C-alpha cells in the first residue's frame, strides 16, 4: 500500500460516487433519444437542411431581390418564342418562361412548399390519428362491438392503402377541382392510412405491455391509462412518421402538379408547380426544371434524414 492517505480518500470518495449513481439512472426516454440524435451526423445534416429551409420559408419574401410575380423579362422584351434568357449579373438563375426572376421565385417558393407539406401532413395526421385511435381504442375495449368496429375501420384503411397514392389524390382532386386546397387535402388523405395503422398498432402493443397491465392491476382507470401511458408512448413513432411524411408530401404535391392538378394560380410560386411548368421548356432552358427539382430533393432529403435518425434514436432495439 504505497498510496498516500489523501489519495486514498479520493478513491473512497469515488466509491461513494459510484454507489450514488444508481439514483440518476432514470434518464428519460426523450432525453436519451435526443442525446443519441445529437451524435448522429445524419441527424445534424438533416436538421441543418431543415433549419435553412424553414428560415428561407419565413423570411424568403424579404430576401428575394425581385418580386416573384413581376414579369420583368416580358417587360424588357427578353422573352421571345423559343428564348428564355439564362443567368445574368442581376438575375442569378435567369428568368422563367414568363420573364420572372427564377432566383426570387425559388426563395419565395419555399414558403408555399412548406405550407403544402405541413398542412397536408397535419390533415393526414389528424384524420389518421382519429381513425387509428378509435380503432385502437375499440380493439382495446374488446367485446364484439369493439372488435367489429376495429376490423371495419381497418378494412377501410387497408382499402385506402391498396390504392396507389397518386390515384387516390387524383380522384380527390377530380372531386374538388384544381386548387391549392385540393392538393393539400389530396396529399393529406394519402397519408391517412399510414398514420391510422401506426397509431392503432402502437396503441394495441402498448395496451398489451407490462406497464399498462401493472397500472390496470393497481386500479388506475382506463381513460387515465390511455392519457398518461398509452398516448405519450405512441407519440414518438407518430412524430417520426410525420417527419418522414413531410418529405413524401412535398414530392407527392409535385407529382400532382405534373399531372395538371396543381395550383393554377402561379403568381405565388411553389416548387412543385414550378417544376411542372418547366417541363414545357426543357429543350430551351432545362435549368428551370433542375433548380426547383434540386430544391425539392434536398428538402425531402433533410426531412428523411432527420426522420430516419429520429426513428433510430427512439428504437428500443438499438437503445442498449
Amino acid at each position, binding site marked *: 500500500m504505497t498510496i498516500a492517505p489523501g489519495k*486514498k480518500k479520493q478513491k473512497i470518495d469515488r466509491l461513494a460516487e459510484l*454507489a450514488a449513481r444508481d439514483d440518476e439512472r432514470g434518464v428519460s426516454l426523450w432525453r436519451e433519444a435526443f442525446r443519441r440524435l445529437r451524435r448522429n451526423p445524419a441527424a445534424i445534416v438533416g436538421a441543418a437542411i431543415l433549419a435553412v429551409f424553414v428560415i428561407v420559408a419565413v423570411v424568403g419574401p424579404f430576401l428575394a431581390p425581385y418580386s416573384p410575380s413581376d414579369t420583368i423579362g416580358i417587360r424588357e422584351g427578353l422573352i421571345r418564342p423559343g428564348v428564355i434568357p439564362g443567368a445574368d449579373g442581376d438575375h442569378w438563375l435567369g428568368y422563367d418562361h414568363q420573364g420572372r426572376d427564377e432566383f426570387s421565385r425559388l426563395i419565395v417558393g419555399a414558403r408555399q412548399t412548406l405550407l403544402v407539406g405541413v398542412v397536408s401532413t397535419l390533415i393526414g395526421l389528424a384524420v389518421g390519428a382519429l381513425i387509428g385511435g378509435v380503432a385502437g381504442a375499440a380493439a382495446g375495449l374488446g367485446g364484439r362491438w369493439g372488435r367489429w368496429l376495429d376490423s371495419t375501420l381497418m378494412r377501410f384503411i387497408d382499402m385506402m392503402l391498396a390504392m396507389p397514392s397518386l390515384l387516390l389524390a387524383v380522384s380527390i382532386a377530380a372531386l374538388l377541382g384544381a386548387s391549392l386546397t385540393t392538393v393539400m387535402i389530396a396529399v393529406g388523405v394519402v397519408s391517412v392510412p399510414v398514420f391510422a395503422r401506426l397509431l392503432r398498432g402502437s396503441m394495441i402493443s402498448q395496451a398489451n405491455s407490462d406497464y399498462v397491465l401493472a397500472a390496470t392491476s393497481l386500479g388506475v382507470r382506463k381513460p387515465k391509462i390511455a392519457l398518461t401511458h398509452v398516448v405519450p408512448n405512441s407519440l414518438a413513432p407518430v412524430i417520426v412518421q410525420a417527419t418522414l411524411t413531410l418529405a413524401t408530401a412535398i414530392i407527392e404535391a409535385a407529382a400532382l402538379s405534373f399531372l395538371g392538378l396543381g395550383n393554377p394560380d402561379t403568381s405565388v410560386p411553389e416548387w412543385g408547380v414550378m417544376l411542372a411548368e418547366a417541363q414545357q421548356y426543357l429543350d430551351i432552358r432545362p435549368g428551370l426544371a433542375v433548380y426547383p427539382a434540386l430544391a425539392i430533393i434536398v428538402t425531402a432529403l433533410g426531412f428523411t434524414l432527420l426522420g430516419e435518425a429520429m426513428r433510430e434514436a427512439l428504437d428500443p432495439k438499438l437503445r442498449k
Partner: protein
Amino acid sequence: MALLEVDDLSVTFTRRGQRPVRAVDGVSFSVDAGEVVGLVGESGCGKSVTSLAIMGLLPRQPGLRIGGKAVFDGTDLLQLDDRSRRDIRGRDVAMVFQDPLSSLNPVIPIGLQVTEVLTRHRGMKGAEAGREAARLLDRVGIPDPKRRLKEYPHQLSGGMRQRALIAMAVACKPRLLIADEPTTALDVTIQAQILELLKELVRDSGTALVMITHDLGVVAGLCDTINVLYAGRVVETARRRPLFRQPRHPYTVGLLGSVPRLDAGRGERLNPIPGSVRDVLPWPDGCAFAPRCSRRVDECVGEPPEMVLTHDGRGYRCVNPAPLPGVTPAADVRATAPTAAEPGPVPAQAVPDDPPPAPGLGPAPHEEEQP
C-alpha cells in the same frame, strides 16, 4: 497438460467517444480432459463473453480487442485463422446456448440443423446423415426422432429444443463442450432433466464440460472445479466441496448466502449482497467488489488484490478473506462499514471473535438427485 488452458484472457470493447469497457479482465482457468468446470457469477461478470471469446464467436467489430491465450490441446485458439477455427468449432469444441428457441433457426427443419454439422465435420450425406441425426436425437432423449427431424423449432417444446441443441453440439463427439446457461430459460423440472442429460453425456463420452451459470445449484450438482467470476476476473477458484464448505472470497460468501435454503429456520432471512454488479471499482483502482463488500478494509482500495494460492490448489483474490472455520482472524484486520455513501475512513470495528457462520452449506437441490 490441461485440455484447455485459458491464460490472462481479456476482452475490451472500445466505442468511439466512450471509455473502453473491459468485459473480461484477465481471466485464467484450466480444464482437464473429462473434467467439469464451472464458471459462476452474476450477469455482467463476463462469463458469457469469456466463452464466446474462446470460441471465436464475438461479433467482429471495430474496437474489440482480445488479449491473452486460450490453448486447446496445444494450439492457441485465439491465434487461429478463420478457416482452422471453423474446423475446430463444432468438431472438437462445441457449445450449447442459453435460449433454445432463439438459438435455433426458425425456418429450417430440426433435421437439417443436425445433419449440417454431420455433413460439415463427418462428411455424412443423405440417408446416412439422416439416420445418424435420428440416433442423436434419440440419444438426447427426444421421442419419435424420425418425425421430429422433419419438424420446425416452433413445433417443439422448450426442453425438446434444448435437447435438440445439445444433440447438435455432441454430434461430432467433441472433446470440450461449453454450456452457456443451458437451463436458465427452462422450467425447473426440465432444468433438472437437461442437467442430468449433460452429466450423462459427459460421463459416457469423456467430454470435458465448461458450465457457465449464475445458479449455484447447477454447479453443486455437476462441477468438479468452480471458478467464481466478478467484474471480468476470477476471484476464487476451488474444487466443489471446499468451495461450498469454506468459501474464502467475500463475494463467494455472499453468493452462497443469497441462495434460499430449505433447511433455513423460519424467521431466518436471506442475505442478499448489497448493491449491483454495476457498482464496480475498476480493477486497477483496487478490488472491484470493494464497493459492495462487507469485509472491506483500507487495503482493498489502491491496487488490485493478487490471487492468493493456497496449498490445496485453491485460490482467492482477496486481501481480507473470510476466515476458515476454527481459525481466529488476524487481530490487525480492520473492516469498514459497507455503506459506500459515507466516504472517508469509518471508525474501525473489531471483527467479532467467533467466525461468521459459513452460509449456504445446505445441500443444493441437485446434489441429492440420483444420477
